[in-house]
C-alpha cells in the first residue's frame, strides 16, 4: 500500500464547483448590478468570466493531479497543492475518527467523501479525501482505525444495528423544539423581502373578509406557527432520514440523511460522556433523545458539538439500548436528590427578576396588570421542577448528574473522562451548607462543563472522594 494513489477524477469537478461557488457573488455583482451596459463592455465582462471559469477548471484538474495519498510507516501521507506543494503526514494513532459522507455530485457517481479527524486540535490538522469509491473508503477506514483488537473482533462479532423507525423520526421531529429557530428564521427572511411583498395590500384585502383585527392576527399567527412547525419537521426528517446506528467491534457508526448522506465513525474510546435530553413535551410522553459527547468531533457540528445517538427512545428501553451500543453507560435506577434547603434558592433564582418586573407593571396598570401575576405560575413550576430534578448518583466508575434548564438532562460520565472537578460555593451557599458541582470534559476541540447547583456539601464531598485518584489520605 506504499504506492501513492489519486482521488477519483471526479474530484477535479468538485474542486472546480467549489472554486466557482466562491466566485458566484462577484460574478452576480458584476453581471447583474454592473450599470455600464455598453455592448463592448458587456463583451469584456463575458470574456473575464470565461477566463475565470477556465482557470478554475485548470486549477481543479491540477489539484486533483497533485493530490496523492498513501499509507506508509503507520502514517497517512498526503501530498497536495498546485502552486505551493504541501505534505501532511498524519500518524495513525492521532486519527480520532473517520467520517464518510456524500454530497450530490459524489452520489451521482457513486462516490464518497472521507474526512479524517485528528487529535491535533486545529482545523488544519484534518484531512479530506474529496472523492473516492465506497470500497476504497471502507478499506482506508479499516486500515487506519485498526488497533490491536478491533480487526479480529470485527470479523467475529455480530453487527449490532439500530434503525430509527419512520414513526419515531416523525415524533422526534415534531417534538424537537426547533420551532423557535425556524420562526425566527422566517421572521428574518420576511423582513428581508418586505420591499417586494406588499404586506399592507394583502392585509387590506384580507380585512374585507375578516373584520376583527384581533381575529385576523390570531389566525395569521396560527398559520405562521403551523407552517414553521411543518418546516421544522421537514428539516429534521431530511437531515435524519434513514437514521442508523451500528456497532462494529469498538466503533460506533452513525449514518443518516436523505439528500446528503452522512456517516460518522466514532470509536468507543473517544466517547467522553452520554447525554440524555428530555424536553417537556417528550418528557410528558416518556421519550428522550440521546447524544454522544465525543472528543474531536469537528464535522458533525450541531449547536452543542455533540452527535445524536438515538433521535427518540422510550425511557423504558433506554438502558437496554445503551448497553448494546455504548456498554458501561447506564442510567441509574434512582438519583440522590437535592436537600430541601436548596428549594428556596431554586425558586428565587427563577422568579426574583421576573417577579420584580411583574409587580412594577401590576402597580402601574391596575387592575388589569394583576392578570400578569398568573405568569408567575409557570415560573413556580420551573423553579420547583429544577429543584426536584437536580440530582446525582455514583455507581462504580460512573457519575450520573441530572439537572434541568427547561429541558431535563441526564449526563453519564466515566471517572477517567472527567478532566477536572470543581466545587463552587458562594458565601450564601456556605451558610446553608450547599455547593455547586461542576465537571469538565473534552468535547470537540474544546471543553464542556456540566453542573448541578446547590447540592448538599456532604454529597459533594462524597463525589470529590470518589473522584480523587488517591482515595482518602495523601499527606505531603
Amino acid at each position, binding site marked *: 500500500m506504499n504506492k501513492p494513489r489519486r482521488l477519483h477524477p471526479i474530484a477535479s469537478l468538485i474542486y472546480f464547483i467549489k472554486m466557482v461557488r466562491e466566485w458566484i457573488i462577484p460574478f452576480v455583482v458584476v453581471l447583474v448590478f454592473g450599470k455600464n451596459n455598453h455592448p463592448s463592455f458587456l463583451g469584456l465582462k463575458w470574456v473575464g468570466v470565461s477566463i475565470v471559469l477556465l482557470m478554475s477548471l485548470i486549477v481543479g484538474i491540477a489539484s486533483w493531479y497533485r493530490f496523492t495519498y498513501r499509507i506508509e510507516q503507520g502514517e497517512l501521507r498526503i501530498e497536495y497543492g498546485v502552486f505551493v506543494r504541501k505534505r501532511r503526514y498524519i500518524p495513525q494513532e492521532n486519527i480520532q475518527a473517520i467520517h464518510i459522507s456524500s454530497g450530490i455530485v459524489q452520489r451521482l457517481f457513486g462516490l464518497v467523501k472521507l474526512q479524517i479527524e485528528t487529535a491535533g486540535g486545529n482545523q488544519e490538522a484534518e484531512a479530506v479525501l474529496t472523492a473516492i469509491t465506497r470500497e476504497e473508503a471502507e478499506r482506508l477506514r479499516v486500515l487506519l482505525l485498526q488497533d490491536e483488537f478491533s480487526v479480529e473482533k470485527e470479523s467475529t462479532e455480530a453487527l449490532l444495528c439500530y434503525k430509527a423507525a419512520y414513526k419515531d423520526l416523525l415524533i422526534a421531529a415534531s417534538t424537537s423544539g426547533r420551532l423557535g429557530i425556524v420562526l425566527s428564521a422566517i421572521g428574518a427572511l420576511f423582513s428581508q423581502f418586505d420591499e417586494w411583498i406588499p404586506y399592507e395590500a394583502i392585509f387590506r384585502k384580507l380585512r374585507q373578509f375578516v373584520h376583527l383585527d384581533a381575529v385576523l392576527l390570531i389566525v395569521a399567527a396560527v398559520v405562521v406557527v403551523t407552517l414553521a412547525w411543518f418546516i421544522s419537521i421537514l428539516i429534521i426528517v431530511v437531515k435524519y432520514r434513514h437514521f442508523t446506528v451500528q456497532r462494529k467491534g469498538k466503533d460506533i457508526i452513525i449514518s443518516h440523511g436523505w439528500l446528503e448522506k452522512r456517516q460518522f465513525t466514532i470509536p468507543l474510546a473517544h466517547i467522553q460522556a452520554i447525554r440524555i435530553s428530555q424536553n417537556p413535551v417528550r418528557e410528558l410522553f416518556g421519550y428522550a433523545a440521546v447524544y454522544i459527547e465525543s*472528543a474531536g468531533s469537528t464535522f458533525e457540528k450541531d449547536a452543542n458539538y455533540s452527535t445524536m445517538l438515538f433521535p427518540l427512545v422510550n425511557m423504558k428501553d433506554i438502558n437496554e439500548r445503551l448497553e448494546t451500543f455504548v456498554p458501561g453507560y447506564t442510567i441509574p435506577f434512582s438519583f440522590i436528590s437535592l436537600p430541601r434547603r436548596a428549594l428556596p434558592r431554586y425558586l428565587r433564582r427563577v422568579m426574583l427578576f421576573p417577579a420584580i418586573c411583574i409587580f412594577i407593571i401590576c402597580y402601574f396598570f391596575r387592575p388589569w396588570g394583576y392578570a400578569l401575576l398568573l405568569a408567575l405560575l409557570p415560573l413556580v413550576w420551573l423553579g420547583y421542577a429544577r429543584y426536584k430534578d437536580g440530582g446525582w448518583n455514583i455507581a462504580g466508575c460512573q457519575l450520573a448528574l441530572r439537572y434541568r434548564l427547561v429541558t431535563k438532562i441526564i449526563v453519564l460520565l466515566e471517572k*477517567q473522562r*472527567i*478532566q*477536572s*472537578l*470543581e*466545587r*463552587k*460555593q*458562594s*458565601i450564601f451557599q*456556605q451558610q446553608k451548607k450547599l455547593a455547586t458541582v461542576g465537571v*469538565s*470534559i*473534552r*468535547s470537540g476541540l*474544546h*471543553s*464542556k462543563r456540566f453542573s448541578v447547583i446547590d447540592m448538599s456539601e*456532604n454529597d459533594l*464531598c462524597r463525589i*470529590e*472522594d470518589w*473522584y*480523587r*485518584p*488517591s482515595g482518602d489520605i*495523601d499527606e*505531603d
Partner: protein
Amino acid sequence: MRGEPKHRISERALRVWRIDGMISSCVYWLGFFVVLGLTFAFHWPYWISMVTFVLSVFATYLLVWLFPALRWKRWRYDVHEHEIEVQHGIYVIKRTIIPMVRVQHVDMKQGPLLRKYRLATISIWTAATVHEIPALDVEEAEALRDRISVLARMADSDE
C-alpha cells in the same frame, strides 16, 4: 472530607495585585475628572461629581485593598502525588481537583510586573481545561512546574 488546601501563594502577590488594582482604578478617576471638567464647563449640579467621586473612592478601596486581600486569603493550592487541588475566588469560592493523570502539560509565564517582583504564574493544562496558579515565587514555581510534569508523566505510565 478534607479541609482546604494548605499552600498559599507568595505574599508579594498582594503587592502586584494592589498595583494592578491601582492601574484599573485609574479608569474611575479619569471618569471622575471628566465629569468634574464637564461640571465646571456646563454648570452641572455639583452632586453629580460628588457621586462620581464617592464611586471612585469606593472602587479604589475595593480594587486596591479589599479584593487583593480577600483573593490572597482564599488562594490555596496543594500538589499531591496523584492530584492537584486549587482553590480561589473572592465572593464565590471555587475549588478544583485535577488528577495527575489528566494533566497534559505545565507552563510557566511572567509578565513585566511579575518579573519585577520575582514572581511567576503556572498554568496546568488538561485536555479540556486550564488552571492557573498565579504569582508564585520564581524558584518555587520552577520547582513546582518540574514536579508536576514528573508526577504527571509517572501517573501516565501507571495507567
